[in-house]
């Protein structure tokens, strides 16, 4: 269901403790701190294993997140804007990760550039409420999605590398 590399990186992300969403006041602040701790650890892990692949920040309420993610294909780096809102039902429901600039370019996407996850993601998320957080959603959802979709989009010439765009 998930490949070994994903499993390993997933296991190294610390789990979260507080079940709280953006409507829960002070508890949400606690949850948000846990989210940041898990994300920081995840980025550090990625750097250590030479697999750094995203940057993320949020508004001060922690309800809107934005940043960049990238994927290296044949030694070229393809970078995309990443954004998502924290739904009021979080963490019972996972955030819907979106890559707006790829909207309409792949069928594996819902409107607005929200990525279409596999059948395994939702049950897995549901079984791990509230332990999974944003870092887990990235590792389990966006990482595997990029690994499948980006090479496909490049091969179909739907996306091209920035250096090639500059030449044109």
């Amino acid at each position, binding site marked *: 269901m998930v490949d070994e590399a994903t499993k390993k990186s997933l*296991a190294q992300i*610390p*789990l*979260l*403790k507080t079940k709280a969403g*953006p*409507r829960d006041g002070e508890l949400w*602040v606690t949850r*948000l*701190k*846990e989210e*940041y*701790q*898990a*994300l*920081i*650890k995840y*980025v*550090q892990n990625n*750097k250590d294993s030479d697999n750094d692949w995203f*940057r*993320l*920040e*949020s508004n*001060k*309420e*922690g*309800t809107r997140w934005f940043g960049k993610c990238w994927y290296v294909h044949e030694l070229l780096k393809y970078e995309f804007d990443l954004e998502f*809102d*924290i*739904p*009021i*039902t979080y963490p*019972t*429901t*996972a955030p*819907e990760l979106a890559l707006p600039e790829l909207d309409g370019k792949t*069928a*594996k*996407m*819902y*409107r607005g550039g929200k990525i*279409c996850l*596999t*059948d395994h993601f*939702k*049950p897995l998320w*549901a*079984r791990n*409420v509230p*332990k999974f957080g944003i870092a887990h959603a990235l590792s389990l959802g966006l990482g595997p999605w990029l690994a499948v979709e980006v090479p496909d989009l490049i091969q179909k010439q739907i996306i091209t590398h920035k250096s090639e765009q500059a030449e044109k």
Partner: protein
Amino acid sequence: MATVKDLQKKIKELEAELEKERREKQNVLRPKISQMSSEVVDSNPYSRLMALKRMGIVDDYEKIREYCVAVVGVGGVGSVTAEMLTRCGIGKLLLFDYDKVELANMNRLFYQPHQSGMSKVEAAEKTLKEINPDVEFEVYNYNITTMDNFTHFMERIKTGGFKSGEPVNLVLSCVDNFEARMTVNTACNELGQNWIESGVSENAVSGHIQFIIPGETSCYACAPPLVVSTKTDEKTLKREGVCAASLPTTMAVVAGFLVQNTLKYLLKFGDVSYYLGYNALQDFFPSMTLRPNPTCDDRHCVNQQHAFQLREKSKPKVEKVEEKEDDVIHEDNPFEIQLVSETTEEELKNSEGFVPDLVQGLKVAYTTPAPSQNSDSGAMVDNTEKSLEELMKEMQTL
């Protein structure tokens, strides 16, 4: 060079074309009707509906004009739902959706290609007002799952009824994703608002409606989502290169179920369904009542359950005769064979959490483990002395 005759002919053609265009553009708008009449004349849009009274199906059809329904999501199911209610002469409709009309929606009913690019609620309001100007509309083009919009959404459900300040009579969820369904569920549990959930599967060959009375019937968070089995092997389901399929037929069937149940509930006729499934491949319709989960994750659901039990207790008691099912005893069992489960029932329950009793043809999409007392094997985040601002800064400087 064109002759006068040619030019005259050309003018005639253009005039005819202009006339045709003008006629097409001219909107035939009927005036508002203040009182529903049961007079059977060609010009009465309500005559066939009012006939329901004469036939003894509905006692007081005109009541529909005092009811207000909120339709959340006006896509394949929601737009048809709103159209049916509009044609039935509902008093007021609240429509919520953040999406735009696209050509990719044209395999479904209601929207037309020339509406592409318009917001769905705006396009729907325009069409529906033309069909029936007696209906009052309130439309909101936003995503209900985000913080800012959710507060407003709750407020409209609570006070946006036919009489201002009163709640709507029923919320119909016609959304296409789990997050939005859980959002409607959260709002309705908090408000004690009755609602009907509806859905069509991503492979387009099954669907369901579920009537939720907070505290009395199972809420959407009481158990994992239910799935109508269609005897197709989910593992062989091909998802290559697509997210979801859709059929106008399945969506119209589900919209029909949804509005039928709405009319039965509002106008008090027939039996209201609590869960009705639709398996399009075998034409099978499982139906059942779902009781709430006493350990539901949503604390408002649990509170509503307590409130419901109190209400029930205060009601006069009706003696119930329970039918006892006899244990099956085989008269002849010389080897004393007994069926014993390998795992105890408790073990099974803990691994699966709450699973409701379901009729044949229904199953849960997945199971979630019961909350465990012992701490998890995985490493948890440490308690930190750092403030949120410090953590945000640390993340930025990585």
